[in-house]
């Protein structure tokens, strides 16, 4: 075998293993959606269980074709430094228009399909994050529109800004967010906040004097199990945030694992810090609440607080950040509730607030780290602050504006009478047909 033939064999094996890596990471990420569906159905009262599930299923389904049609293109069109206007002339934006040879089975292109698939699952995750906060009163039609907006437009533009190595936040500010604390969790959490303001609370959530009633879901065990399944899925999610060391054309990936910006890292770094953040979040929430709902939400919060710097944290730091996230989320949720906002699962607190903590923590504790390429500023608090502001506003404004429009059109919110009856009135089958009834809080 000649050296050229040997090289061809090695390249073929590396490319096939790269495809397999993202294929299975994508499959693992489906657990995020299975988990969110269980979590949201568990948090729903009996009369709303299936509507919550249908909403989650449809978000996933609509994001796949819309991300094919325009979402993937948006990522590449916003990855060259533009803030508002997509750069249609960018090389990969031209390659990823939905009618190109790169957007379908292509024997010369082993990367595009699996990368697209991984990003589809990231996208569906953003919608699932928002999904829980709006259960039991949003109309499914509006939800499909909002889910498509956050999953196939809003977050992916933010990813172009802050994840693409050529995005303006990265190139101009040295923004560092390898595990998507900002581009996924802040965007989704603040998008949810914008929607919740217009959507209003569930019937019975608040009293005339402004005090809040708890509206407990019908199955705490289902909720807790769902949260644990989400954690499983996030191992796929975070693994897919890495660039596999395959010899792809024009890539420097031969050198080893790369983070999303093309900087050196490895799976071991992510393993240390994902697990330490996870554990810190559970323990922090247990310390404050003793409540298994918040403990498992704390597990997510802990991962998100560590996510932006998963490649750089000392594991003890990731643990402390996770602990902080676990402590903060019940208080942040209480504060948001005191504003008259009904976030049914604490998504704004867990994703928005902890994403913010994660982004800013990198600025406070990792300042001065050099970045992957010459001319890009090192990590700094200023860069992370600019990124946090961009992610907060980038999520909140579209969520608020589009939900305001849907509300004015009269299709955002299920009527109070249908809420009292149960949103499952719109579903042709019953969740528990034999004996379970909702308690009436209205």
């Amino acid at each position: 075998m000649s050296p050229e033939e040997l090289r061809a064999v090695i390249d073929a094996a590396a490319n096939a293993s790269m495809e397999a890596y993202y294929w299975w990471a994508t499959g693992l990420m489906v657990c995020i959606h299975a988990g969110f569906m269980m979590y949201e159905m568990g948090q729903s009262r009996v009369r709303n269980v299936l509507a919550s599930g249908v909403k989650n299923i449809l978000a996933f389904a609509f994001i796949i074709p819309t991300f094919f049609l325009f979402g993937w293109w948006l990522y590449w069109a916003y990855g060259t430094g533009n803030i508002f206007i997509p750069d249609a002339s960018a090389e990969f934006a031209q390659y990823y228009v939905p009618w190109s040879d790169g957007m379908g089975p292509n024997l010369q292109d082993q990367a595009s399909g699996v990368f697209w698939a991984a990003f589809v699952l990231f996208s569906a995750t953003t919608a699932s994050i928002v999904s829980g906060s709006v259960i039991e009163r949003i109309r499914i039609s509006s939800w499909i529109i909002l889910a498509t907006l956050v999953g196939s437009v809003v977050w992916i533009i933010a990813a172009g800004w802050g994840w693409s190595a050529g995005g303006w936040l990265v190139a101009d500010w040295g923004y560092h967010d390898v595990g998507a604390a900002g581009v996924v969790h802040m965007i989704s959490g603040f998008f949810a906040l914008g929607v919740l303001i217009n959507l209003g609370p569930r019937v019975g959530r608040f009293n005339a004097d402004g005090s809040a009633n708890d509206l407990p879901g019908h199955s705490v065990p289902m909720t807790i199990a769902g949260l644990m399944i989400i954690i499983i899925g996030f191992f796929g999610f975070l693994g897919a945030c890495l660039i596999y060391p395959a010899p792809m054309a024009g890539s420097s990936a031969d050198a080893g694992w790369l983070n999303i910006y093309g900087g050196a890292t490895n799976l071991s770094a992510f393993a240390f810090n994902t697990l330490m953040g996870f554990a810190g979040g559970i323990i922090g929430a247990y310390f404050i609440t003793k409540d298994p709902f918040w403990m498992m939400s704390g597990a997510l919060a802990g991962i998100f607080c560590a996510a932006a710097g998963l490649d750089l944290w000392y594991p003890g730091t990731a643990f402390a950040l996770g602990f902080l996230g676990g402590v903060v989320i019940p208080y942040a949720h209480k504060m948001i509730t005191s504003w008259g906002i009904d976030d049914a699962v604490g998504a704004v607190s867990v994703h928005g607030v902890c994403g913010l903590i994660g982004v800013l923590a990198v600025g406070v504790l990792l300042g001065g780290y050099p970045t992957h390429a010459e001319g890009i500023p090192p990590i700094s608090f200023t860069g992370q602050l600019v990124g946090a502001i961009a992610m907060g506003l980038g999520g909140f404004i579209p969520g608020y504006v589009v939900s305001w429009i849907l509300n004015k059109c009269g299709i955002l919110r299920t009527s109070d009478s249908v809420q009292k009856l149960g949103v499952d009135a719109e579903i042709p089958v019953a969740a528990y047909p034999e004996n379970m009834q909702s308690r009436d809080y209205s």
Partner: protein
Amino acid sequence: MFDSSPIESWEGAGAVFNSAGSSGVMIWIVIAVALCIIPIISAIRHENAIENEHG
């Protein structure tokens, strides 16, 4: 649209999906867009019917 193979041989083939590199792809894109929009309209009509039925 129906005679849609973009290749005459597998030797050195690149894009192999039906209608690759031709305007036939646009027809499927239009169909995909329609298949996303029509169910949303259907959902709105269904929800309105339930709302009207239950006041």
